[in-house]
């Protein structure tokens, strides 16, 4: 009898669980792949991996037989998910094997067919790489403001690291940005402004301790399925635990919450300021915490919207980041207008609901865990809203304690690990460093062994994502390379960016576009060269998830056909572009990458991908272990007092590569005690390092014995900044012509633009179509029935879609929702391109539209 897949998975899971109980999984999945009992004469190989999809970052075990993945199941020893997955994870093995995998480089022969799958021919790697490199070099030599790289929060850590190094040190260009700009940028700017260090202080285990959950603009039930399972565990374990869902529409998260609090009109800004106002007015804030830990500021206000391509350089656009210190009393004064009534009038939320939220924060005896994600980040005041959530948690002292903190949820599997930690943004360098800071540039030069001042050229940030695509459409970008993303579906205002709008915005057809991909996507239709890539576990890599957990995925199988590791693609392009270039007296390529790549052999110097990654990791982790490099260490400690400040790079300390395999991932900062490496679960919270507290960080840089046993040692003067951020209206306000507010987002069955999950028949069958969720009363008023085709029309474009009142989301009247996974229903044709002026993250949640019923 042949063993069915499910039985196989189940028996394998039992075997793993048994092994886990015996404490031997780490050894089973260590450096060398281990083999199991033979099945039908062949051996099953088990390797360690991380799910390819969302920011939860669930660990998985992959089993391969005869070079093919036969099963994937939850890794019981990965502390982020402890052995469970969602239905997408259940089908992970299938994403590799759809029939239309890209297996040969493709070169576009007929540019008039750009925008279609036609007009390509197959090519050899040499031919494709020569062409890509010659175009990049030509652009670079002519005008390096006209080249761009668009990366991803799905790019593995070291691929992002090498790409960033090539772009920033090799090409000395800051025109590199990731799709995390569309997702986490507002959270990043919020963290940097408030704490001067990125990423949440807490961890997923906070869920197990909370008394109250508040989800703000976060549909966790669908977008973070395994974390929501953990939230539900906490709830059913204690009936006193409550969940409030603060949202603009009913979701599956709201459906299981104890209370749904709806708001509109950017009312979240007013509600949070109202809570802060009464915390101070009623003296219910945490006085000890405020005095010990906080400083107060105000920032530039009335900042308008990025409604023109010159916004960033406009007078107001250049001032948006400015802040100045104010007193606590001045801060309180600024909050005074935010009365219950005013906040209620702005938001449409009943006063009692706002009071109920306030009462939670005013209560020092409960633990409040706020989660927020895209509803807060994809917001024309996304950075401000991140500030306001930190503000109410900090003022009330509900911060930095297990179960009692604010937690910004991440969207993508390595938005933290790659985009944020490696720094593949146009303004960043690795490990919280930024291009604009001279000390940061000196430190980076030290780690990269560059001559001092070599990076002076990149002191000014490059094009952020929307700017990049705006300039592409304006004809000001000649070369674009993208990988691990699908910009032609996920960018906002696709009408403009795909050249379907104004005549003078069709630069996409003239630029030379390179897409590294695994399947045909809309983006490959616009490519001049398509490079076939190794997918997920067809190469070794690592992701960093939403709780600062770095985890390695081992190579399990070979890529199909001629598909190649992106790292190899990068090396081959870099060696061609940098041919005969020098940095100081040294060959540029060899100085940057010679440690790992032999350009004459066209191959890596190390024996295996494991060894390549291990060696490159050692350089990368020098950023957070300055003692590994004396030149870097001197800058870190400001030995010569040139900079007037220490960098405290150890605040993000990373361990040697193999530790991440042995320990099935670890949350940084990772600390060594007596030769053993321990993760930090609760940053800035004092306690035993071995229990997950930030003992070593605080002892090195912070202060013991302060209120809440917290010490924010990375913040200026060790004091996070509470910045007053007022209410300002959405970029678009509904009117007679565009009376609906349209929101997009993810649903559980599909990952992002669906290029992987829609190729899994079971997932495609489970959710085959993107529907427009409408309120039944709006449908009745417009004579629209379930299943009717309608046209959504915005100021930006239009798209046809099928209307539904089925209730997947339940929008209130005049609100709409549709997911963005379906390429045949390209809802980003109607999405606005307006972004938060601080974070440059577009607002995908409130484009104003009208709904027209289509005849027939």
């Amino acid at each position, binding site marked *: *009898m042949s*063993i*069915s*897949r*499910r*039985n196989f998975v*189940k*028996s394998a899971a039992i075997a793993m*669980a048994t092994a886990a109980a015996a404490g031997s999984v780490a050894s089973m999945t260590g450096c060398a792949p281990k083999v199991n009992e033979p099945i039908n004469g062949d051996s099953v190989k088990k390797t360690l991996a991380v799910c390819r999809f969302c920011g939860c970052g669930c660990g998985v075990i992959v089993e391969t037989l005869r070079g093919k993945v036969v099963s994937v199941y939850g890794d019981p020893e990965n502390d982020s998910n*402890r*052995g*469970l*997955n*969602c*239905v997408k*994870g*259940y*089908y992970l093995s299938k994403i590799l094997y759809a029939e239309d995998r890209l297996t040969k480089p493709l070169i576009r022969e007929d540019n008039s067919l750009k925008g279609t799958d036609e007009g390509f021919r197959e090519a050899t790697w040499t031919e494709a790489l020569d062409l890509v490199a010659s175009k990049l070099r030509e652009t670079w030599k002519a005008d390096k403001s006209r080249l761009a790289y668009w990366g991803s929060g799905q790019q593995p850590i070291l691929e992002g690291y090498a790409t960033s190094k090539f772009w920033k040190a090799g090409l000395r260009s800051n025109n590199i940005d990731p799709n995390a700009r569309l997702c986490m940028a507002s959270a990043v700017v919020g963290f940097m402004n408030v704490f001067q260090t990125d990423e949440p202080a807490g961890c997923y285990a906070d*869920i*197990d301790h909370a008394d109250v959950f508040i989800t703000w603009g976060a549909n966790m039930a669908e977008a973070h*399925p*395994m974390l*929501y*399972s*953990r939230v*539900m*565990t906490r*709830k*059913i*374990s204690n009936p006193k635990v409550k969940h409030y869902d603060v949202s603009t529409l009913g979701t*599956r998260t709201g*459906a*299981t919450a104890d209370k749904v609090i709806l708001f509109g009109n950017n009312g979240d800004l007013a509600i949070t300021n109202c809570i802060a106002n009464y915390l101070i007015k009623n003296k219910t804030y945490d006085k000890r915490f405020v005095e010990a830990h906080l400083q107060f500021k105000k920032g530039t206000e009335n900042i308008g919207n990025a409604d023109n391509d010159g916004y960033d350089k406009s007078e107001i656009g250049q001032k948006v980041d400015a802040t100045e210190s104010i007193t606590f009393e001045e801060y309180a004064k600024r909050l005074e207008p935010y009365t219950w009534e005013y906040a209620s009038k702005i938001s449409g939320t009943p006063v009692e609901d706002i009071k109920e939220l306030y009462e939670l924060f005013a209560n020092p005896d409960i633990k409040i865990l706020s989660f927020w994600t895209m509803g807060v980040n994809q917001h024309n005041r996304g950075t401000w809203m991140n500030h306001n959530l930190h503000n109410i948690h900090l003022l009330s002292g509900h911060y930095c304690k297990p179960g009692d903190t604010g937690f910004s949820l991440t969207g993508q599997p390595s938005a933290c690990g790659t985009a944020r930690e490696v720094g593949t943004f146009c303004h960043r360098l690795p490990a919280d460093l930024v291009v604009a800071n001279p000390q940061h540039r000196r430190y980076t030069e030290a780690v990269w062994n560059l001559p001092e001042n070599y990076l002076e050229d990149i002191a000014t940030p490059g094009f952020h994502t929307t700017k990049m695509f705006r300039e592409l459409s304006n004809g000001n970008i000649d070369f674009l390379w993208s990988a691990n993303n699908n910009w032609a579906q996920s960018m906002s205002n696709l009408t403009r960016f795909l050249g379907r709008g104004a005549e003078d915005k069709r630069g996409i057809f003239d630029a030379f576009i390179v897409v590294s991909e695994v399947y045909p996507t809309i983006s490959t239709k616009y490519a001049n060269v398509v490079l076939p890539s190794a997918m997920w576990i067809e190469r070794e890599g690592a992701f960093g998830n939403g709780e600062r957990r770095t985890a390695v995925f081992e190579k399990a199988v070979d890529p199909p056909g001629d598909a190649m590791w992106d790292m190899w693609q990068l090396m081959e392009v870099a060696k061609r572009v940098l041919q005969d270039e020098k940095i100081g007296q040294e060959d540029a390529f060899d100085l940057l990458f010679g440690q790992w790549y032999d350009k004459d052999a066209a191959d890596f110097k190390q024996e295996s991908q494991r060894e390549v990654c291990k060696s490159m990791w050692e350089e990368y982790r020098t950023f957070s272990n300055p003692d590994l490099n004396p030149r870097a260490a001197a800058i870190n400690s400001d030995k010569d007092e040139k900079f007037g400040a220490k960098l405290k790079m150890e605040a993000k300390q990373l361990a040697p590569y193999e530790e991440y395999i042995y320990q099935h991932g670890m949350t940084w900062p990772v600390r060594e005690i007596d030769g053993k490496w321990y993760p930090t679960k609760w940053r800035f919270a004092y306690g035993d390092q071995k229990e997950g507290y930030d003992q070593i960080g605080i002892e090195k840089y912070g202060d013991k014995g302060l209120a809440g046993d917290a010490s924010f040692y990375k913040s200026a003067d060790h004091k996070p900044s509470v910045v007053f951020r007022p209410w300002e209206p959405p970029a678009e306000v509904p009117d007679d012509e565009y009376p609906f507010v349209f929101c997009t987002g993810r*649903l*559980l*069955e599909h990952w992002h633009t669906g290029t992987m999950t829609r190729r899994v028949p*079971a*997932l495609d*069958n*489970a*959710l085959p179509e993107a529907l427009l969720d409408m309120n039944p009363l709006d449908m009745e008023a417009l004579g629209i*029935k*379930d*299943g009717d085709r309608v046209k959504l029309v915005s100021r930006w474009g239009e798209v046809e879609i099928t209307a539904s009142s*089925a*209730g*997947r989301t339940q929008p209130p009247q005049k609100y709409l929702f549709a997911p963005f996974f379906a390429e045949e229903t390209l809802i980003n044709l109607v999405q606005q391109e307006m972004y938060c002026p601080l974070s440059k993250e577009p607002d995908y949640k409130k484009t104003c539209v009208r709904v027209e019923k289509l005849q027939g």
Partner: protein
Amino acid sequence: MSAGKVIAGLAAVLVAAEGAFAVAANGSSKLLRPPGIQGEADFMARCIKCGKCIEACPYASLHAAGPAEGAAAGTPCIDAREQACRLCKDFPCVAACPTGALRDVAERSDPKAGYARIDEEVCIAYQGYRCEVCYRICPLIDQAITLDFQAMENDDIHTKFIPTINKDVCTGCGLCVERCAVDEPYVPIRIVTRAEQERDGGR
């Protein structure tokens, strides 16, 4: 293979055998019918196999039963896994029925063509996977299918999100069967049709 598997496999065989027996013994099939069915016997007595309901269905969910169905051959039925009933607001199939074999439905919650039943052995939600496709796709979400949250054995941080059928509310439209994300070794959700309910005394 575990003992549980063997039993589940045997059960599947038994169900199949039972079905064949039912046709032979009662002369009636256990077909899933369109909305508006008031009982299998009532339906069989009135249906003239005119095919008007099949023509009226905008989703092509209805087809005529094949010759293997004996007396029921030519009557309208639904293969839920293939294409389920979409519970149209205006029920064009019912409106088209000239004999009242399909009748008396006004709201989407009115039809009673059967109810869904989940096989706990095969459904992955019962193993703790966050799936619940059937729940989220249900046209009567939070009414016909609700979620029951159950603690997981040997796992103190996760909860099972168990889709739970409310037999009295479920219309038997079959959309959950069509969309179910599992099909190996078989689809773990099926519709217990009116014919089956009547035959089994409403079980």
